[in-house]
Every structure is written in C-alpha cells, then in structure tokens.
C-alpha cells in the first residue's frame, strides 16, 4: 500500500514536466525549490520547537555564498552543496543565540538577523550588486548548461524548466528522506524531547544545547541549498527579496502543511508558493497600486491561513487528511460486518 502510493507519486512527479504548461512548470519548480527550505524549517520548528523568523537570512546566505564561489570559478556540483554548508555555518553561529534565548525572544532575534543580513546585502555591492541586484549563474554540469541546453533521452527532450524541475525534485526527495529518517534517530528524538520539555530532556541525558545547535545547522543547510537553487533558477536577485515577508511565507508553509510531519512541508509549500501564480490567473486582479493586486491578496490569504489553521487544525493539512481517513474508517467499521460491527481497526481502538 505504502510502496504503491510512493510509486504512484514518483510516476506523477516524473511525467509532470511533459503535461504542465511552461508557466505552471515554472511554478512547480518554485514550489519544489521552496519545499526543500520548508523541510529544513520543519526540522527546526516542527521537530525541535524553535521559533525562527530568520529563514530568509539563511536562504540568502546560501544564495550569495554560492554565487561568490561561482564567481571564483568553481563548478555547480561544488557550489550547490557548498551553499548549504555556508548557510549551515551561519546557522551554527546563530545557534548560541538559541541557547541563551527561548520562544519569543528567539523569534525576535532571528527577525533581527534578517534585518542585519539585508543591511549587509544592500551595502556590499561587490557581493550583491547593490540595491539593483545582480545576475546569478545557471546550474551547469561540465559544459552542459541548464538554462540553454536541451537534454535528449531517446525521443524525450527536456529543457531548462524541466531540468531544474528534476534537479529540485531529486534534491527534495533526498531532503525528505533525510528528514523522515532523522526523526527516527537519536538526534531526531532528542529534538522532539527538547521541544516537548527541555528540562525533562536534559534530565534524561539529552544535550539540550547541542541539540538546538544541530537543529539550526540542519535547517540552515537546507535553506542554503534552496536559496542557491532559487537564485540560480531565476538568474537574478535583489537584496530586497530576502525580507521578513519571505521568512513568514516559510513559517506559513509549515503551519499550513502540518508541523513536525514528513509530508507537511511539501503540502504546505504547494499551497503557499503556488498561490501567487494561481491568483494571477484571476481576471479581476489589477497590478500593484490600484485596488487589490495579486501579491496583496496572496499576503492577506497567507495571514488568514496561518490564523485559521492554528485555531481550527494546528496539525495542518496532514491533520485534516488524518481526520478524513479516520472518518472513512469509522464509516466502514460501523457497517455490520463479519466481526459483528465490533470496532477492531487500529485507529478505532485508540
């Protein structure tokens, strides 16, 4: 059952680039790239319970770290993982803040990180191109350039958008697998223990300080990879892009998808990062400035979704899915059957 569902998902993911229009394929790439960073934030906030409004800072660290290395002449297979490592190093530096601070104070300090990072980007033109922004190199393997070349597999041709799609999908699959396995290991369980009750975790021998720093490092690593991919795919970025609102989008994604779950980040990323494209399709929305623009409406909906989910279903879309599944099981179980209608399914015995 599980394996079948996974196979089906993989199949759909593989054919999607050949079905979607160019515009929607672009949106799909954005969603997949963002989902990598959402999975990272889910490790920090969903598993370890640390509130961070600083995710945009780590995305930017990865993007500009990568472009600095690319400027130095290093190839993509090197600078993509290196972007993660650079962001993770910043995460390790921010970790000590998390050791001193908890909850709300941490949220505000990570907010400060975003402002500091943007200040540096706006003022160090050699790195960021100044307020006007700069170009980012496309991913390339050897002499094969993702933005210009076309890959031919038999009769199938895959070009720019599709190439980034498969790259992002593969990296996301690896990220998700890592996050799924992490929660079953000692460090992952330590994170959950720290989230639930730091003092009790410490008593049981969990190194709380170390666990928090590890969560920051892991989360920042994925943010860095995602940031580098994003900038490379778009080919251009301005310092103004990496702002607090970007951080909030990632938080919205984990809230909507379902914090602490494995599938949640992907679901949340689909809802949050496909929304602006969906809204742009609506005919009655004008450009920014006159009445409701697509981006303003998107922001309003993000805000509403965060509030609505936290009030009504804090476990997000994953929680809603579980409810539906359980309701289905209950209906089936209530039908008189060979067991005489006795509730025997695992869900019902809970």
């Amino acid at each position: 059952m599980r394996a079948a569902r996974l196979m089906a998902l993989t199949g759909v993911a593989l054919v999607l680039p050949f079905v979607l229009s160019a515009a929607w394929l672009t949106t799909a790439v954005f969603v997949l790239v963002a989902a990598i960073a959402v999975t990272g934030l889910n490790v920090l906030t969903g598993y370890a319970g640390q509130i961070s409004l600083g995710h945009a800072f780590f995305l930017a660290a990865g993007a500009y770290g990568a472009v600095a290395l690319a400027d130095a002449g290093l190839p993509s297979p090197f600078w993509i993982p290196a972007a993660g490592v650079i962001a993770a190093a910043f995460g390790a530096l921010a970790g000590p803040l998390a050791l001193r601070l908890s909850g709300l104070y941490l949220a505000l300090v990570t907010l400060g990180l975003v402002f500091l990072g943007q200040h540096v980007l706006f003022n160090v033109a050699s790195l960021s191109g100044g307020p006007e922004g700069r170009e980012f190199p496309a991913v390339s393997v050897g002499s094969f350039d993702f933005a210009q070349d076309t890959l031919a597999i038999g009769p199938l041709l895959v070009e720019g958008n599709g190439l980034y799609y498969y790259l992002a999908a593969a990296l996301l699959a690896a990220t998700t697998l890592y996050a799924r396995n992490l929660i079953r290991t000692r460090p992952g369980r330590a994170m959950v223990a720290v989230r639930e009750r730091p003092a009790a975790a410490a008593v049981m021998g969990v190194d709380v300080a170390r666990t928090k720093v590890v969560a920051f490092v892991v989360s920042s690593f994925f943010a860095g990879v995602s940031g580098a991919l994003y900038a490379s795919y778009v080919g251009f970025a301005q310092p103004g892009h990496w702002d607090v609102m970007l951080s909030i989008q990632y938080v919205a994604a984990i809230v909507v998808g379902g914090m602490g779950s494995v599938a949640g980040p992907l679901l949340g990323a689909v809802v949050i990062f496909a929304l602006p494209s969906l809204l742009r399709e609506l005919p009655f929305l004008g450009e920014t400035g006159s009445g409701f623009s697509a981006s303003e409406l998107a922001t309003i909906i993000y805000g509403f979704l965060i509030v609505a989910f936290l009030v009504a279903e804090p476990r997000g879309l994953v929680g809603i899915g579980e409810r539906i599944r359980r309701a289905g099981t209950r209906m089936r179980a209530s039908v008189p059957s060979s067991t005489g209608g006795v509730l025997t399914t695992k869900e019902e015995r809970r």
Partner: protein
Amino acid sequence: MTELAQLLFQGVALGATYSLIALGFVVVFRASKVVNFAQTAMLLLGAYLVSWLAVDQGIAFAPAVLLAAVLLALGGIGFQAGVLRRVAGQEPFVLVMITLGAGIALIALVEAVFGPEQRPIGDPWAASAVSVGGVTLLWVKVWTIGVVVAALVAYFAFDRFSRYGLAIRATAADEEAAGAVGVPVRRVHMITWALAGVLATLGGVFLAGFPNAAHPTMGDAALRAFPAVILGGLESPIGAVVGGMVIGIVEVLAAGYAPAELGANFHAIAPYLVMMLVLLVRPYGLFGARPVERL
C-alpha cells in the same frame, strides 16, 4: 553642541513614540502572555484611520484621533474575543504566529485599500517649529513628548490606583488564582486589548507626524519598537518606557554620527544590534526576571 542637543531632542521624541508602542506590547503580554506582532499593523491602521477621518471625511483632528482610537480599541476587543480566546493557554508559538498572521493580513489589506502612496494625517502642526537657543523644536515633536508623558502618567495611575489596574496586575501575577478570587479574567484580557488599540492609534499618529506621513512601510519603523520591548523585558511597563527611550536616542544618534563605512541606513538596524548585544548578556532583557522552572 547645538547639533548634539538637536539630535537628543529628536531622539527623545522618537523614543517617546517607541515607548508608547512598546507599552502597547507589554500591556497585552503581561495580562495574557501573547506577544502581539499585530501591534505594528494596528499602528498602521490607526494612522490610516486618522488620515481617512481627518482628511477625507473632514472631521477635526482631535475628534478624528479619538474616534480612531475607539474603533481600534473595539477591533482589539473583537480580535481577542473572536480569535485569541479560542487558543488561550496554548504554546507561545501558536499565539505568536496567530498575531503575526493577522498582522500581515491587516497590513496588506490597508495597503490594498489605501494604495501605496503617502497620505497626510491632517495634523494641525505640519512643519511649524519653535527655536530655543539655536535648537529647532518641531511642534509635532513637542506635542509627541507632551502627549506621551500624559499617556504614560495616565496609564501608570490606572495601573496603580484603579480597580481594573489591580485586576490586570493580579491576572499578570497568576491568572488562575486571580480567576479563583473573582477577578473577571476575560474582561481583563479584553481591556488590555482595548488599551493596546488606543496606544497603537497614538503611536501611529506620532510616527506619521512631520517629516513623515502615513505610508505602508510604517510597519517596518514600528518593528523597531520590538528591540525596545526586549531591552526593557516583556513584562515591565517601566522597562518599556526606558527601552523605548534608549532605542529612540540610539537610532537618532546613529543617523547623525554613524561613519559612512557602516553603510547607508545604518540607523535602521542599530536598534537590533543593541538588542542582540543586550540579550547575549541578559537573556530576559534589562528589567525582565528569569522565569523559575518547576520540574
């Protein structure tokens, strides 16, 4: 010397505004342990309401401010009773994210309705000023300091001497115990949100005073009141005032004296730098108490 006096005056005026905003956070946090990230949005809404009432509807400035304050107080009560009450007692993350979500939605809504342009708020002071010993005192800044001092005195008198002030302090100390001895805890929560609405309106008006105006990025300026709250400690009204003053003066002095190597707009991040340094040394702010943890 004159330059320093000039900057200090501006710093105190800005600090007074930050104190007011910071007090709005503290009032709500003390009673219900909610960090109100929507305070920045309420500030923005307050300034725009005043602008709409005073400029578009032609109401005189003072009644317009009063009316806006009442509307925002009602809005605060509605949000508390309609949304926050349903998640009372949940972990800080949930409460923070709810106010943050409501805040970004409200800011986008204000921007969509009023457009991205600057709007005058119709205040009677405009750019008029008085000169004292070579130092130019803008009337709007003088009024800012005066009104903030009056508002702070009124708040502290309310907190210290009135029945509801006592009820708020009792709720802050121990909500369950307060409820058990008959303090109307729900009403206390609603009152604190109404107060936050009033404080946000005043803060918004002064933040939008000359040389500024009501504009959508005001929320960013209001975010700089967060360091003030953190500096003072989330639970301390006195701390909010002191923190607000420190941040206001630091920001204005940084704008005046920061060397060019630190980059353009360094003054905008100076408050956050101060906040981070303070938190590294004192993790619960200058006036905050480390919570006792019971196992």
